[in-house]
């Protein structure tokens, strides 16, 4: 196991559980402490996006926008144009969902460093149902030139991602989850935007995961190990720019791939990986993700199982991918 990760990872009861949005809240405060150009805008969701924590510390640099995501994007674009470092906070379904064109024109084409935090992404939002479970936000954001796309695996990584994004000088999307999920990384785990991390080394199949489902990928790798199958697990926290080198290095060794994400399979992280492989080193790829459907109400665990995103399904996909070699 990776020496930079939390010990006894397969013992879920021993792990701390935190939502990635908490990491965002902490990262905002840290970035705000370092640089007073950092401003936070929020569309009437301060508490649930954790931008509240920034508001409490720096009320003069917090801007309440009301339920107006389109205006939030354009106002932030203006602020970034002036020289501020604005973070805009809402649910991913609304931002970048509702304000996609404003992000495209006034942030991406303008090429100004606005940071878009899309909270409550994926079906693990739970009871709120399909309208609030963003499953196409990665697709929207990765198709925009100039945009960096990050999907942190846990709260600790989300804090690092938020802090680093503040100072990368680029339009950046940060994808966050609502639910408490296992904390796998520590302060010492390396994190650099654009650089994928190998969380577990293996030789038979590469499991590339993003977001909190990285934990399910690790559990799947443990299960496979019991059967003598050694999976390499990569945390692809930055979906754009995608770390081609890390992917190819691993896949040249293993020759088979499974991608894991809480997002539509179409145009998501798995597609980004497939684009790299198809052009450089074609091998079998199995996709764990949402198969062209919307989410629905239910408990997060229930939904993750219903949509076949948990470790037993990853194990099955890994075996299938290996068989197709």
């Amino acid at each position: 196991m990776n020496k930079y990760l939390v010990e006894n990872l397969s013992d879920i009861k021993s792990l701390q559980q935190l939502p990635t949005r908490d990491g965002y809240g902490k990262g905002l405060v840290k970035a705000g402490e370092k640089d007073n150009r950092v401003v936070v805008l929020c569309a009437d969701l301060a508490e649930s996006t954790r931008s509240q924590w920034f508001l409490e510390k720096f009320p003069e640099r917090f801007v309440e926008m009301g339920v107006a995501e389109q205006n939030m994007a354009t106002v932030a674009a203006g602020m970034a144009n002036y020289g501020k470092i604005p973070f805009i906070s809402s649910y991913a379904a609304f931002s970048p969902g509702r304000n996609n064109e404003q992000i495209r024109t006034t942030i991406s084409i303008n090429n100004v460093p606005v940071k878009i935090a899309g909270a409550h992404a994926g079906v693990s939002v739970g009871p709120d149902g399909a309208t609030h479970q963003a499953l196409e936000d990665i697709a929207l954001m990765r198709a925009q030139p100039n945009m960096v796309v990050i999907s942190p695996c846990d709260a600790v990584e989300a804090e690092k991602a938020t802090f680093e994004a503040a100072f990368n000088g680029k339009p950046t999307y940060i994808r966050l989850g609502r639910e408490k999920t296992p904390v796998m990384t520590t302060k010492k785990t390396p994190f650099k935007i654009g650089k994928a991390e190998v969380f577990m080394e293996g030789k038979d199949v590469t499991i590339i995961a993003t977001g909190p489902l990285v934990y399910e990928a690790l559990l799947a790798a443990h299960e496979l190990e019991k059967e003598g199958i050694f999976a390499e697990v990569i945390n692809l926290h930055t979906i754009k720019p995608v770390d081609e080198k890390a992917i190819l290095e691993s896949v040249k060794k293993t020759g088979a791939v499974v991608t894991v994400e809480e997002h539509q399979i179409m145009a998501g992280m798995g597609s980004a990986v497939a684009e790299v492989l198809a052009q450089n080193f074609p091998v079998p790829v199995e996709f764990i993700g949402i198969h062209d459907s919307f989410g629905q109400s239910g408990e997060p665990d229930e939904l993750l199982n219903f949509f076949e995103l948990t470790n037993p399904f990853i194990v099955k996909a890994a075996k299938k991918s290996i068989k197709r070699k």
Partner: protein
Amino acid sequence: MIDQEKIKELEILANKMRQDLIKTLVEAGSGHTAGPLGLADIFTAFYFHILNHNPKNHLWEDRDRLILSNGHTCPIRYVAMAHAGYFPVEELKTLRKFGTRLQGHPERDKLPGVETTSGPLGSGLGQASGIAYAAKMDGRTFRTYCIMSDGEQDAGNTWESAMFAGKNKLHNLTAVMDRNNIQIDGMTENIMPLEPLRQKYEAFNWHVIEADGNNIAEFIDAVEEAKAVFEKPTLILAHTIPGKGVKEIEFDYRWHGSPPGKGPEDVWPKDKQGEAMLKELKAIETALKSKNE
């Protein structure tokens, strides 16, 4: 009050902008005619009198910001910028052509001095509000101006921004609405009635001034009045004539998106349109100059 001599000078300059606009559009073979002709006086007033700017240092921190929301009218902005010294007048010939810095809709990343990328309507007022808000946070004294169309008052984003600017009392923000009553599909009041615009903005906590947008002196007075308003952002409802300066096309919405050479043929055949418009503008130039002597 601005002196009469300066006004005359600006009027002659605005006429020159119109002539260059027509030449530029003919060369480009596409682009908008009516809106830019109507806005020639306003852009002349901005670049040659109102704005505190430096064409040789377009990123100067204390410059006034001029945000163009209705990006399709950019040809007149380009003409004014070229004459103000942002780039060679000769470059106007490249408008809308492959590899040009003068994109069909303006891009911040391509042409120094263009403050924001625009074209998709309804997004300029928000960006201008963001700049004004940030400037206010930092106690900066430059002013932010946003030119927008009446057609883009159809867009929800515009009203979200109007609410935001009113809430935050952005007194350093002046929006200028090009109230020319036309949009692509017809007259604004038929497409989606906008009136009463003054009362709407007043209800959103704006100070509203109505002015003749083709009267440079009156427009400059309105801009000056806005500077004296401290508790609210100001909207200048600038009533303009689309196609202003070329009698035959004034008020004709069919000239919204057609360049001379590709417009409706009821007055002139296509190949005579550019020439005819220039002739008319020349005649106005002669009249203005003789009045001046």
